[in-house]
Each structure stands twice: as structure tokens, then as C-alpha cells.
């Protein structure tokens, strides 16, 4: 080849359908994921105050509603915990069982599956689709392919619109959306997600995994010799002379063994069902998303021949090369599992043990103290309180750990009532005549006590009272 091509046209992939264990699991995941994703915004939830939507990310109100949990901006560290858990979960699962996320749970895989289903329903099985693609344009071809794209776009639109419904009251937002007076962000997001869903799941498909996705690349570095991979049993499949079709003399395993031919009948089913268009018999490849459809395909063939399953199966590099047993419990996996459990436990504890209200106390630093007309020293404080319950909360403040004679002044707000979910900033000061002018900051606690029999524990926040080094004027 004298003139090489720097750019290659895409080779279209027309995956054949298959049924089997893993396909059933994958459909179950699709049904579950779609059920949750598309129905969740419509689930109503009774709350004493706030939105009545079970899951709502209220950006304008700066609150995330998750069933009975309301997440406030100051709880943002939970997000850090959640992301850490997601990362450890990915490390754990990938170390143990390879690209499980890619094959079973990634939305690229889920949506592509559904898009291929639509394609299959309208254009038929793989050979029919290949024929249709090669056929000259006709009214029938335009209708079939056009309808496929219309359904894809519709699916993409519903996907994008549903995402938007998580960020506002779903029924109301939907009404506004079609009346044309929803916020610009709602239309922009829907349009963007419609476009990306259509392009990614309809057109780009496996190229997203091969060329765009960073996970596909870095998951490979978490593999070790014992990680589960989808692999072809080369010894059994190839025999000593390689694979061969079911020829006249090669119909039984005994005959094939005699001829030195392996169990693989080279039917190509495993290649045809592959959504990324690879041949698993060539070994582990970067394109493989571990969807296990080739296992289902090969199992189907082996079953029909009456031969034992497992020519293509979940295995590990060690097992493929040495034939040793799978070793699932390894220090790395156990370590990841331990860290994962710890992170989940900490997050759950933090969520369960969150206070019903919170308070922060900040000493005013400018000026750090002031002398009053009677000679006492005054420090000022800025207090923020936040009622996280959905009841009226009345708080009364007192200081703890100050010398006798110290005066705490909240102006008119020694006792304040906070509406459900209300935040409030208050100013307070502490005045006292120090026994000794020592130039030190003296710790004390500001205590907020809920009034009435509400069963909420008081909160104490540490702060300091600064005494100057020398009494002013003396």
C-alpha cells in the first residue's frame, strides 16, 4: 500500500440479538434503571414544609430533597463522601470483576441497548439491517430509517426532559415547558441532552467507549492477573490445529479431537453480537466493555450442539495462562472493600447523626475588643443559626464557661424563633471586667437551647473572649 490513509471511515456495527443469562441480567438492569430514572421525578412526598417532590434538586432554594432527607449547602461535604464512595466502589468492583460498570450499568451501554432494540424492531435482525443499509434509497428504506431516527430523537428528548424535571417541581415545570415559559436553562439543558443522547447512543455508540471515555482507559490499570475478564478458552477452542467449522468429518467432539481441531466451530456468533465489534477470540482488548453477550452467544451454540458451556466465559488472566482456579478474595479486593465499608459507614453515620439545627459563632476581629464607658471589655460575635427541621424552632442563647459577672447581650434577640428551614444571622457581644489583663483569648461556649419540649438537644459552639494585655488608660 503506497498511499496510506490517515483517517478511517467508521465501520458500522450491526449487533445481532442474543438471549441468555447475561442478556437477562442486562435487561433487568435496563428496566430497573429506566423505571427509577423516568418515574422518580413524579413521585410525590409529604413534607411539613418545602417541596412535595420525593427527589428534587432545588438550586434556587439551595436545598436538595431526597425523600426524608433535606441536604443543605453546608452539608456539601456529603457530596465529597459520596464521590469517594463512588470512586472506591469503582476500584473495588473493577479490581474484582473488571469492567462491570461499563458492561451493565453505564448509561452509554443502557441507552445504546435501548437504541439497538428500537433499530431491531423497525429494521429487523442483523442481516436485514446490513441489507437495508446497502440497499439503494427507496421509499421503504427512507420510511424505516427515518422512523428509527424519529424514535431515537423522541427517546433522547424524553431522556433530556426527564433530567430537567429533577431540578424543579415536575408537573408544574412540564406545564411551563410546553407552554413556552419555562426557564431558559430548562430548554437549553433539554436540547443539549437530547442532542448528546441521540448522537452518543444512536450514532457514536461504541466509539464513545473506545475514543472518548476516560474510564475505559483507566479501569485497565486496576486490573491484575485475577480480575474477572471475559475470555475465550483458547486451548479448548483451538485444539492443536486451530478452530474449524462443522465440516462433514468434524461433527462430534471426538472426531474433532482426533483431527486436532478445537471446540470452536467458527460460527462467528460471538463476533456478531458484540456491541463494540471485536472478536473476543483475539484476547482481551481495550474495546471490550465486559458486557458478556459473547458468553451468551457461545453458550447458545454449545447448548445446541450438546457440548459443555464455557468456551467463552468469565475467567482471569491467571486462569487463561496457567489454568489455575479463580482467586476472588485477594488483599487488594479486601482492602478496597474495607475502605469502601468505612466510607459508607462514615457517610451513613454523618447523615443519621446530623443535628436538627446548626450554629456557627465567629468572633468579630475588627476591632477584636472595645472598652466600654464603665471600663469593661467587650468582644463581639457574629452568630449564624439554621433551622434544618420542618417545624418552628425557638432558640435561647446563653454563654457557658465565662467568669461570673460576664454579660451576654443579644440585643433584642436573646430568644429567636426560626421558621422551618430558616437561616438567620445574629450579632451578640460579651462584656466583662477581667480579673487580669493578660493578652490571652479565653475559651468559652455559646449554647443555643431549643425552647419547648421539642426533643432537640442544645448545641454548644466554642469561641473565645479576648482580653487585652493592659487595661486601657491604666
Amino acid at each position, binding site marked *: *500500500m*503506497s*498511499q*496510506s*490513509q*490517515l*483517517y*478511517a*471511515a*467508521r465501520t458500522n456495527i450491526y449487533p445481532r440479538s442474543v438471549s441468555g443469562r447475561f442478556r437477562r441480567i442486562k435487561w433487568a438492569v435496563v428496566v430497573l434503571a429506566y423505571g427509577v430514572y423516568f418515574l422518580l421525578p413524579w413521585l410525590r412526598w409529604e413534607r411539613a414544609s418545602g417541596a412535595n417532590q420525593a427527589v428534587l434538586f432545588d438550586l*434556587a432554594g439551595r436545598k436538595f430533597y431526597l425523600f426524608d432527607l433535606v441536604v443543605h449547602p453546608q452539608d456539601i461535604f456529603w457530596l465529597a463522601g459520596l464521590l469517594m464512595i463512588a470512586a472506591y466502589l469503582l476500584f473495588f468492583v473493577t479490581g474484582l470483576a473488571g469492567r462491570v460498570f461499563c458492561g451493565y450499568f453505564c448509561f452509554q451501554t443502557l441507552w445504546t441497548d435501548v437504541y439497538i432494540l428500537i433499530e431491531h424492531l423497525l429494521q429487523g435482525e442483523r442481516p436485514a439491517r446490513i441489507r437495508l443499509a446497502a440497499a439503494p434509497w427507496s421509499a421503504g428504506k427512507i420510511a424505516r430509517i427515518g422512523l428509527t431516527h424519529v424514535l431515537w430523537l423522541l427517546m433522547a428528548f424524553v431522556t433530556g426532559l426527564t433530567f430537567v424535571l429533577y431540578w424543579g417541581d415536575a408537573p408544574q415545570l412540564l406545564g411551563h415547558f410546553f407552554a413556552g415559559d419555562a426557564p431558559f436553562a430548562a430548554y437549553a439543558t433539554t436540547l443539549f441532552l437530547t442532542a448528546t443522547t441521540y448522537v452518543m447512543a444512536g450514532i*457514536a455508540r461504541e*466509539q464513545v467507549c473506545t*475514543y472518548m471515555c476516560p474510564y475505559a482507559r483507566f479501569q485497565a490499570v486496576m486490573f491484575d492477573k485475577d480480575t474477572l475478564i471475559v475470555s475465550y478458552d483458547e486451548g479448548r477452542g483451538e485444539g492443536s490445529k486451530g478452530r474449524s467449522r462443522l465440516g462433514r468429518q468434524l461433527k462430534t467432539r471426538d472426531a474433532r479431537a482426533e483431527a486436532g481441531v478445537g471446540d470452536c466451530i467458527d460460527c462467528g456468533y460471538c463476533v456478531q453480537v458484540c456491541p463494540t465489534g471485536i472478536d473476543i477470540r*483475539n*484476547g482481551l*482488548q481495550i474495546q471490550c466493555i465486559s458486557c458478556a453477550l459473547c458468553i451468551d452467544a457461545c453458550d447458545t451454540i454449545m447448548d445446541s450442539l450438546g457440548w459443555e458451556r464455557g468456551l467463552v466465559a468469565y475467567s482471569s488472566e491467571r486462569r487463561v495462562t496457567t489454568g489455575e482456579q479463580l482467586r476472588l478474595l485477594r488483599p487488594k479486593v479486601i482492602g478496597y472493600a474495607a475502605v469502601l465499608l468505612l466510607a459508607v459507614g462514615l457517610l451513613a453515620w454523618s447523615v443519621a447523626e446530623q443535628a436538627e439545627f446548626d450554629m456557627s459563632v465567629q468572633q*468579630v*476581629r*475588627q*476591632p477584636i475588643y*472595645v*472598652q*466600654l*464607658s*464603665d*471600663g469593661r471589655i*467587650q468582644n*463581639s460575635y457574629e452568630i449564624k443559626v439554621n433551622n434544618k427541621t420542618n417545624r418552628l424552632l425557638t432558640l435561647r442563647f446563653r454563654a457557658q464557661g465565662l467568669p461570673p459577672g460576664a454579660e451576654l*447581650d*443579644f*440585643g*433584642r*434577640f436573646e430568644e*429567636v424563633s426560626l421558621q422551618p428551614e*430558616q437561616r*438567620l*444571622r*445574629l*450579632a*451578640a*457581644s460579651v462584656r466583662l471586667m477581667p480579673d487580669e489583663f493578660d493578652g490571652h483569648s479565653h475559651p468559652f461556649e455559646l449554647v443555643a437551647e431549643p425552647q419547648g419540649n421539642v426533643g432537640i438537644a442544645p448545641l454548644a459552639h466554642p469561641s473565645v473572649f479576648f482580653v487585652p494585655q493592659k487595661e*486601657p*488608660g491604666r
Partner: protein
Amino acid sequence: MAEQNQGKAVQTTGHAWDGDLQEFNNPLPRWWLWTFYATVVFAVIYWIWYPAWPVADSFTKGIGTVTYQRDGKEVTTHWNARAELIEEMQTGSETMKQQAYLQKVAAASYDEIVNDPDMMAFTRSMAKVLFADNCAACHGVGGTPARIGLYPNLRDDAWLWGGDIASIEQTIREGRNGFMPAFGQVLGEDKVEQLAHYVLSLSGHAVDTAKADLGQAIFQGKEGGCYYCHTESGKGMASQGAANLTDAIWTVADVPGAADDAARINAVEAVVRNGVHRQMPAWSGRLDDTQIKLLTVYVQSLGI
């Protein structure tokens, strides 16, 4: 690489260097090239829409525009981030919320504001900015000037001109003229010293009692006439802006900062000798009624 594809030799670029050095060719997907063309198209649209190319001492303005209010008039300018920020600050949803709250505070009475924790919190954060823009140059960002003698400290509990809402509002609105005549020429150095001893004794400082007694006679007699403004007890008079001399607060003489008794006497003597002339300008022409209201509440609340 060749190994991985089992026998299917990977293409090379077809060129050999140094006899045997060849380069594999794994062709890029063609759509990847299209994304490059797409960025080119994007760049052209960008040039047309936004300011982009330098031309001589100017630049291409683009056809995008931003419209905002300047001094009550609508201004339309070529797209730029600064104008867009101004527009956002004039019409953004947060601005609308702030305006609504501002109107609520403007309509409320002083009594309603100081008794409502929510309105107080709003007032404090709004007025903090007003204070920093207009007042902090003299009174300090936190309401405390850099040192005693410059301007009154607004954080303590002493008020030269009265600490009630009405007095503070009047102070801000109309300004104040703080004046104490210079007594150095009139009384002479000895009497100035005697007065200083007496004044310091009022707030419990250790002084020469003989001198202080002489000072008291000057203070409360016709000679000094100090009591006209500071009253006989020395507790001061808000209508004159005359300081209370019996408390621990000093606004002109830096007594708290003085190192020893002599320095304290010197500090007070200087004030008696030279008098005081301080002025706070009137703000009614520069701030609107709502701003003055916010500042009044804020300044009063600084004492807490």
C-alpha cells in the same frame, strides 16, 4: 501492536527511514477530523459575535450587544463581560430579591426593623457595604478608627451626640460640628495643667489632688467655664457634642494609649490647650432616605 491483531499486519505509513525505521499507521476515525472542522466553524461564529481581532489601536466589536441602565438611561454597547456583569447586577434574580427586601425595609418603621431578626440581618449586611463605602474612611471598617483622637469610635457605648435612633439619624443626615475652644492663650500653662489633673481625676486616675482642686475651680467657675458644655458633674451634654469626662472612653485625648501618668496629663493638656474642631459632613445629599435608614440602624447596632 502487530501481535495483538494476530497476523493481520498493521499498516505502516509506507515510508522507511534509515533503511528499516517505519511508522505504524493506526488511522484516526474520520469523524474526529470533523470535530476539528466544527471548532473552526465555532471560531468563525465567535469572531462574528464577540469582540475578537485587534485592528490598529482598536478591535473588532462583534455583533453581539448588551443593554443596561446608566444614570437612568438605557445604554447599548458591544458585548463585553463588564457590561454583562452590570446588566446582571441590575436585572438578575438576586438583585430583584434584594430590591424587594430593600423596599420592605424602606417601608418599615425603625421599631419594626430593630425588632425583626430577619430585617436586622438584612440591614446589617446591606449597611456594612454602605458603611465601608461612605463611613469607613474616617470611622474604620469595623466602626473603630485606627487610633484615639481621629474620629469617634462607634463600637463602644458612649455617644457624643446621642445614641438613640433619632439622634443618630440626625447626625448622619445633617452632619455635626464638634467644637471646643482653645484655652491655652486664655488660661496659661499652669491652669491648663491644673485642669488636666482635674479632668483625669473625674475618671478615677491618680492625680496631684492639690492641682486637681485648683482645676476643679477653673472647670466649674467662670474662668474656664468648662461646665457650660461638660456640665458641672463632667458628664457631658449630647446637644453640644460635649464628651462625658467621667467614663473610661476618650475620643480626642489618647489617655488609654498613654504610657504613664505624665503622658496622660500631657494628652489632656494638649486638648485643653488647643481645643477641638471636628466635623462630620452631612450625608442627606449623597445618600437616599433608605440608605440613611439602613446606616442609622447599623451604626446603633455596632455597639452590640
